[in-house]
């Protein structure tokens, strides 16, 4: 455990970043980059100076890896799926599928082939990503440190980019289905003619900006709240694990065990909430009458 507590915490919260440093940038070791180059950031400062053109390799790597793991397992079960006696894996997969299918059917009454698989992907993927939170905070970073990688954040959902990437995808779907089901006019009408409406045409026009402001905010709030809720919960959970890891070794388990047990609930719940809200938002996008 090198450095002070705050260094330790900051080190743990720093993503492994691969990005573009602008020309003439002075790196942490004092060397100056001649041209704009793509490289791994050596410090947090470098990472943030890379701006938008940077990738969090650890977040993306773990996220994609876990997503592939999820799809691999489920694809294996799907290939072997029989209507006779199911095996253990198929049983588990069927339970998940039925659980998601029921959740979707309870909330969404239209016909849409995308929503149920989308919800399944969201639930399982986010659950797996959250699950990485239960891996002791120093295990994997130390392992990668030995392999020469300075930073390693193993819980993708503690990266706001990951949660935003997903919630903005959901947002895009919301917009797409709103336009598809209601048409451009219907969607704009929904944004501008509610919640305040009037029979008087003049008053109606006067109310348009007010309505648009309200509805616009509530629309924009959907992906933001979706992303930040998941991110916030997991980030806070991770932070507490890191703080617990600062305690003397003999005392750590007294806090980390209860917190981990509690966290099992949190990670499942957060995955479920993300899935459920996605279904709710998409079913709202499908409802024509306001």
């Amino acid at each position, binding site marked *: 455990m090198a450095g002070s507590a705050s260094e330790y915490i900051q080190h743990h919260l720093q993503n492994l970043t691969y*990005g573009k440093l602008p020309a003439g940038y002075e790196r942490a070791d004092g060397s100056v980059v001649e041209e704009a180059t793509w490289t791994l950031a050596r410090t947090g400062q470098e*990472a943030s100076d890379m701006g938008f*053109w940077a990738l969090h390799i650890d977040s*993306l790597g773990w996220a994609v890896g876990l997503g592939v793991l*999820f799809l691999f397992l489920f694809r294996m079960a799907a290939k072997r799926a029989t*209507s006779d006696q199911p095996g253990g894996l*198929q049983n588990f997969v069927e339970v998940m599928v039925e659980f998601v299918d029921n959740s979707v059917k309870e909330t969404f009454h239209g016909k849409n082939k995308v929503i149920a698989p989308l919800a399944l992907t969201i639930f399982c993927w986010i659950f797996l990503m959250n699950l990485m939170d239960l891996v002791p905070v120093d295990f994997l970073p130390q392992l990668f440190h030995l392999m020469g990688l300075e930073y390693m954040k193993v819980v993708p959902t503690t990266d706001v980019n990951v949660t935003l*990437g997903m919630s903005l995808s959901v947002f895009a779907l919301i917009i797409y289905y709103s336009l598809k089901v209601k048409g451009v006019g219907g969607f704009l009408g929904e944004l501008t003619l509610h919640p305040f409406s009037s029979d008087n045409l003049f008053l109606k026009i006067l109310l348009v900006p007010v309505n648009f402001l309200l509805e616009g905010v509530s629309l924009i709030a959907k992906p933001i709240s979706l992303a930040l809720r998941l991110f916030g919960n997991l980030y806070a959970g991770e932070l507490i694990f890191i703080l617990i890891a600062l305690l003397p070794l003999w005392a750590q388990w007294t806090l980390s065990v209860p917190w981990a047990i509690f966290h099992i609930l949190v990670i499942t719940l957060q995955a479920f909430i993300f899935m459920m809200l996605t279904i709710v938002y998409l079913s709202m996008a499908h409802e024509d009458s306001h």
Partner: protein
Amino acid sequence: MNINLTMIGQAIAFFIFVVFCMKYVWPPIMAALQERQKKIADGLAASDRAARDLELAQEKSAEELREAKQQAAALIEQANKRAAQIVEASKDDARKEGQKLIEQAKAEIEQERNQARDALRAEIAAIAVAGAEKILETSVDASKHNEMLEKLAAEL
């Protein structure tokens, strides 16, 4: 907390995963689930049908048993009647035969008696004539008195 390309990368990965899940994971599992549901429903219906069939078969077998019993009873009754008839008929025959035998015997007896009587009559007539001849010795004209003697013999 830098917002950067990771977001786009995540969105792309998300899109690919959802499409994969939609194409290759969800449909086979759903199909298996629905097929199993159908199988179970079919099985239940089949067992219902089988139970109903069993009930019908039981009813039918009971019906047939009852009919067979009735038939058997009818046959036995018929056989009894027929036996009684046969016994009656044979009794009748025997009785008739006996009667016939008795009558035959009676006729024979009668015949024998008549023969005996005839013989006796002839003999008595001869004896009477002989006796009368002895008593009268001469006075009796055989041919003259023969008629009278025959009358006498017929009275026997």
